Structures are given as C-alpha cells and as structure tokens.
C-alpha cells in the first residue's frame, strides 16, 4: 500500500527547499517553540567551534564532525621509555596495559604539553612524573609517517624532541 503522491515535478535544489519547508510547516506534529529552539541552539553551539576552527568543545554540545577527512599521514607524540634497551616501550603506542581512562588521559595531556612546548619552549610533564620512577630513560618523541605503512609494516619516522631523564 503506497501512500505517495507524485506530482511529476522534476527534482531540483530550490524545489527541495520548498518541499522541506512546506512539509515541515504542514506537519501538525512539528515540535513546540521550546523544542525547536532547543534543537536550533544545540547545533549553533555545537557547530561554533568548527566554524571558528577550534578544537574546543562545549560539552554536551557537539558538532558530530567525525572522520570527516581521510588520514593520509599522521603525527603522534609519545614518551619513549628505556630507549635502546630490551625494555624499550612507549607510553601509548602498542601499550596494551593502559586502561581506557589512562589512554584517553595520557593522549590528551601529552598533546596539550606538546602544544605548550611548541609555543613557550617549556615542557611541563608534571602529571607524568610518577611514571618515570621505574624506568632508566625517558624521551619525548614524535612519531610520524603514513598510517597504512605504520599499521601494515610498522614503518615510521621517530624523532626525539627532548630527553627528559
């Protein structure tokens, strides 16, 4: 049973606009003023950081801009522990010992610390200091390359930015 009335008008962009407008206005269940205003304000606030080209997010408002570009290359910052020894390992890369909260937190802190370092030249790693107790050396490193090469062949460029310990 098809309840569709086809008038024969060809599809066009201006027509689409009129169609949306008239269909919404004639809909008896269109949300109340408060509901419509909330939805409108939600997206205005959610989209503001995107329009301002900022990484900031006004929680709980969100733009839903996810995976919008194909990653061709990558740059990641990490801490390399015990470089050159048998116990060489990274804080984030291939570290399966981290729980969800630690991974999120360290990733975020490290990114912030690197931005601050690039702006002021001062590297503030105070939140990490308790991680340095049981290791011989600590270096802040930049890992870059092609995402496919990295995942398929573990090929990447490693650059030591600063030796911390």
């Amino acid at each position, binding site marked *: *049973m*098809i*309840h*569709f009335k*086809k*008038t*024969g*008008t*060809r*599809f066009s962009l201006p027509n689409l606009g009129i*169609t*949306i407008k008239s*269909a*919404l206005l*004639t*809909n*008896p*269940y*269109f*949300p109340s003023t*408060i*509901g419509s205003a909330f*939805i409108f304000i*939600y*997206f205005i606030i959610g989209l503001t950081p*995107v329009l301002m080209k900022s990484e900031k997010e006004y*929680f*709980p408002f*969100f*733009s*839903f*801009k*996810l*995976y*919008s*570009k*194909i*990653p*061709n290359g990558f740059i*990641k910052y990490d801490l390399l522990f015990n470089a050159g020894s048998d116990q060489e390992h990274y804080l984030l*890369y*291939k570290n*399966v010992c981290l*729980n*969800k*909260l*630690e*991974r*999120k*937190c*360290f*990733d*975020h*802190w490290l990114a912030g610390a690197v931005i601050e370092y690039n702006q002021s030249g001062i590297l503030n790693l105070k939140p990490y200091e*308790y991680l340095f107790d049981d290791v011989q050396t600590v270096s802040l490193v930049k890992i870059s390359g092609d*995402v*496919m090469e*990295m*995942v*398929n062949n573990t090929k990447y460029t490693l650059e030591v930015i600063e030796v911390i310990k």
Partner: protein
Amino acid sequence: MINEFKLLWLSLSGNYKFPESILSSEMEKAAESKLLISIFYFLVFATSIQTFSPFSQFPEWNTLLASHHLFTPLWSAKWLVYFEWSFAVQSVLLFYFVSSLLSIFLWQKFRLIRICVFLSIFFYLSLISSFGKIDHYLHVMVVVTFLLIFSPDQKRKRASFNKDILKVVFGIQIFILLTYSISGFFKFYGILDQELSGVPSAFSYTSLAKNIAKTNLATNFSTFFSSLILNSNSILFPFLLLLGYLIELLSLFIIIRPHLHRIWGLLLVAFHAFVLMTVGPDFTIQALVVGIFILHSPFSKNPLRRQRDLRNG
C-alpha cells in the same frame, strides 16, 4: 521492503505532499509513541546496569574509583571535587541506576523522574568524559532524555495529550536525523577539501583502509574486517564508505518522509554495524536509540497496522 525501496527512489526524485494517511489515527500513533518511550527508558536502564559490568563499553567502576589522579573535570563535573572521590563516583552511578529504574514505570506520571534521568545520565557522561577526551557515544541519548522532559504528564489528561507526545517524538526524530546529516555534510566537505588540495580523499581505493589504520593506531585494537580491508584494494570499499556518507547526508531529507523512516532507520542501524565491524567506533547505544525512534517510527506505516487496514478494506 521492495515497495519501500521504490518509495525511496520516487521520493528522492519527485515532489512531495504530506500523506493524509500519516495524519490519521492520532491516538494510535500516540499509543505507539508511549510504547517507544517506555522501551527507550528501559534501554537507559540497561545502559545504567552496564556501568557496573567489567565487560561493557563504559569504563569499569573500579577503574573510575582508582583514577582520581587522572580526573580533569568538565564544567558539569566540577561539583564532584567537593566530595570524597569514591562517594562521588558511587553516587553518580547509583543515581543513574535508581532514576532509570524508576523511569521504566513512572516516566509518564512524573516530570521529576524524567528530569532525574536526564541529570543522572548527563552527570555520568560528564564524569567519564572528565579524563581528557570527551566521549560521544552517549550524546544522542542524553539529548533525547532532555527532550523527553517536555513530554506531557499523563495524570493531567489534557485534550492535546496525544498531539503533544507526538510533537516530542517528532522533535527527537528531527534531532537524531539532523546529527547524521551534519556529520554527512562534513564528510562531503572533507572530500571536496581534500580533492581541491590534491590529496587522496574518500574516492581513493585505500580510503576505508586508512580510516581503519587511524583507529587501529589510536586504540591498538583490530576490528572484525580490518585485516581483510587493510590487505586488499577493492573498489567496493570506497563505494561502501561513500554509501555510508550518503545515507548520513540524506537523513535530513527523511525527516519529512515519514513513510521512509523504517527503511532509513534500518540503513542507519546497518551503517553503525558496518562502522563497528570495519573502522571501529562503537555507537551501539546510539544505534539502539535510532532503532527505537526511527526504525520503529510511529509516523511510518506500521506493517501490523497495514495488514489490519488491508483486512478492513
């Protein structure tokens, strides 16, 4: 199902008038809406149970208790610092559990219960997002609980009850479908931007594989189809990716096509399943919300109602 695909094609290429059949039997649609909202509140309760499970998508409760030193509160979680940490975390989890449990039976009677459910899930999301990065898989559920605060209380028995509840459900549908359209818009903008910059975009053979590699790198986790897609070049993969983008983008259009809600709900749920099996981000909770409000939309032509209409001539 074939009819619905036919409708999809026709409606994308033709002019539209709001079908009269959609406007009929308001009471029936309101009854369906109430059932859907009850199922939604049950889903909220189910997610609250998950917060106590060590095997769920949420951070484990004992990990939360042991992570006070990592806590960097968002504005909405700053009040937690005034309480003893384990008491604050346990209170947020229990508030979420108790309010969602009560909402299963009492959401129609008391607005206060609906407000409590919204606040509890909002505080829970604030808590788990106060560790660096904000999680996005609960945003739609939080906003839906907020919009449901405005659904009418049954005990007042207003004449406009049916229409009011349908307005709330339609508002929820507009919000959900808009999130997908905006997401789709940014993806197509991304294609344009990358094509104009001369770098590989979603049109390239490796586009899906690169998205998978990005997630793999960030999470150290392989998805169900990751090895298959990472090791083969096929035109099918970018095609599927672009199809997903298109489904997202056109969601806005589906707002005014109630008879397509069911098929579009199915496509969106399938889209989330495809993303989980390939790229990795887990939006299962959002897919379930889409399943409730779009796939089982009270504005679509319900197959059971259709059968009854056919029987009645």
